[in-house]
């Protein structure tokens, strides 16, 4: 059973539909990427997932509880950072964690030392949050989100404003939380490389709608191309047309690209040699997520 399910979420803000019919599910132990350009509706979706705004239609359930009906039971299983990790700047890191622990239950504060160690903030925990760097606040935000042993972690643009080392740190932490501790992690981002490196599954959001939703591997696989180098590309094109799921393309003087599944490659080679087309080189190419994204959104960059 999924730990978090969003069903047909729709929301209009200021007369414009910013999220349209968005549905997905999260399983334990996976990192789910929510990828889209700024303004695609990511933050609005995150706010609906966390109960900050009410969807016009659709519902969100967490751990089997609908947040509209059983808010407390549903939110008991969630930790979230929405946009920036905004904490009480005049309080210390420890006091911030204590405040949010008190909002969960009496035992939640017991985990504070362990969480501080996990996000490497032990030594600065008693200093005012106002003196923290953005990276430290981001880590404190994650510690805050992990209070009460949630089953789902919702991170909205966690890489925002971090330097490459900080981004890497967060990425490793997120992966280990999902893969070693079995949390389901929802991660929204506009950074393709980030999502590609961190996430197991990804939904691509554009203008409030999900255009594609699958594992990163399979999304990219569907765009796999096999490149043939041959002195007579036109003849090769005619042969490959019979095997390729999409119209093959000629590129340059001697290259032909065809969309072939793995099993089809030896058959295509047999046909080519039967027709007397010499093949010097066969290479399987995989596009990056960026190319895929450009194709899906019709050229709009992230």
């Amino acid at each position, binding site marked *: 059973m999924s730990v978090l399910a969003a069903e047909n979420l729709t929301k209009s*803000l200021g007369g414009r539909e910013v999220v349209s019919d968005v549905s997905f599910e999260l399983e334990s132990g996976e990192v789910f990427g929510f990828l889209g350009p700024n303004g695609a509706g990511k933050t609005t979706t995150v*706010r609906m997932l*966390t*109960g*900050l*705004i*009410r969807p016009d239609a659709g519902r969100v359930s967490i751990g089997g509880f609908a947040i509209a009906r059983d*808010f*407390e*039971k*549903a*939110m*008991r299983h*969630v930790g*979230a*950072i*929405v*946009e*920036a990790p*905004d*904490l*009480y*700047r*005049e*309080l210390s890191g420890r*006091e911030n964690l204590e*405040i*949010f622990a*008190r*909002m*969960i239950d009496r035992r939640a504060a017991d985990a504070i030392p362990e969480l501080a160690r996990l996000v490497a903030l032990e030594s600065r925990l008693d200093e005012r949050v106002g003196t923290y760097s953005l990276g430290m606040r981001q880590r404190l935000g994650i510690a*805050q989100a992990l209070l*009460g042993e949630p089953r789902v972690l919702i991170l909205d643009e966690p890489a925002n404003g971090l330097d490459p080392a900080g981004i890497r740190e967060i990425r490793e932490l997120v992966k280990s939380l999902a893969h070693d501790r079995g949390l389901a992690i929802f991660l929204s981002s506009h950074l393709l490389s980030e999502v590609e490196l961190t996430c197991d599954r990804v939904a691509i959001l554009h203008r409030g709608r999900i255009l594609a939703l699958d594992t990163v591997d399979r999304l990219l696989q569907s765009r796999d191309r096999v490149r043939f180098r041959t002195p007579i590309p036109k003849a090769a094109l005619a042969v490959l047309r019979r095997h390729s799921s999409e119209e093959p393309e000629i590129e340059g003087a001697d290259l032909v690209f065809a969309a072939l599944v793995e099993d089809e490659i030896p058959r295509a080679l047999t046909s080519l040699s039967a027709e007397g087309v010499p093949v010097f080189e066969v290479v399987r190419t995989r596009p990056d997520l960026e190319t895929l994204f450009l194709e899906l959104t019709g050229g709009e960059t992230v």
Partner: protein
Amino acid sequence: MILPLVENEMLKIFRRKRFRVVVLILVALTAMIAYGNWRSRRDADIRRGPRDWHAETQRRIVEMQNRLRSRAIPDSYRRWMTFETSRLQYSLDHGFDPNALTGPFFSRNFIVAASFLLLPLLVTLFASDLVSSELAEGTIKILLTRPVRRWKVLAAKLVALFACVTLTVALAALFSYLFGGIAFGFRGWGAPSLTGFRSGAGGLDVSAVRQVPLWRDAVRVYGLGWYAALVVGSISLLLSILFRTTAAAMGTMLAILIAGTILPRFATGWDFAKYFFPTNLPLPDYFSGTPPPIEGMTLAFSVENLGLWAVAALVCSFLVFTRRDVRV
């Protein structure tokens, strides 16, 4: 289950500088006013020799009666002087020094004077950022994504606010007694105090005036000042929810409070001003012998009016806070 939440809110209030500023203002003001009173008393003694309160009161009554004969004084001032002469005359007739000054008297008088503007301003200072600061700093996004229903979060804020209002009034009483005591002596809680002045047709009605020990009078004055401060706190809380910045919430409340002190003076004929809540804030004035802000207003009317404003503000606060989309 709401107690840990109240603890959180108290921690947030105490850790902000605002509440410390309120305490500092109270210390500075009470000390300054006590010192000022003490100096002017001393200067008068040096000029005229030891004070003879009989003669002094008599002189003030005659002065005011002379000025009342002149036509060139505004209505509101004429009304106040009519009241004041009756009050002084009554005190004189019954052997009470109307300007007796001891630490306890000073403390009571301070709250009477503070309840219509100073206490409301101080309460506004820390009440108007209760929610707006969470909106401005973005902390509301964590606060409302925890497994606690929104109405409980707001209820905890309200309880913490009322606790801090209570503390503020208590500190005002304490500091005014402390500095008043240093200047004029700490004893005298049992001294007789006149209370029960009412406004009657055309002047002050002294038929119900009686003497009570000062401590009883003081308890009533503190209580009414506290009630008025709670009402101001509730309305500030609503503004703090409606506005996204503390500056806007506080500015609006200050404007309303100051308008409230000006309005009755310029709109004596405008009866509707009595439904405006700041007009009703000076509750202790009703039985200490000052005319009501607008003719026909009574203590019961003002207490009810303030109560309705507070309840309406709280209902709106809860409705807006529990329903609003958080988009900051």
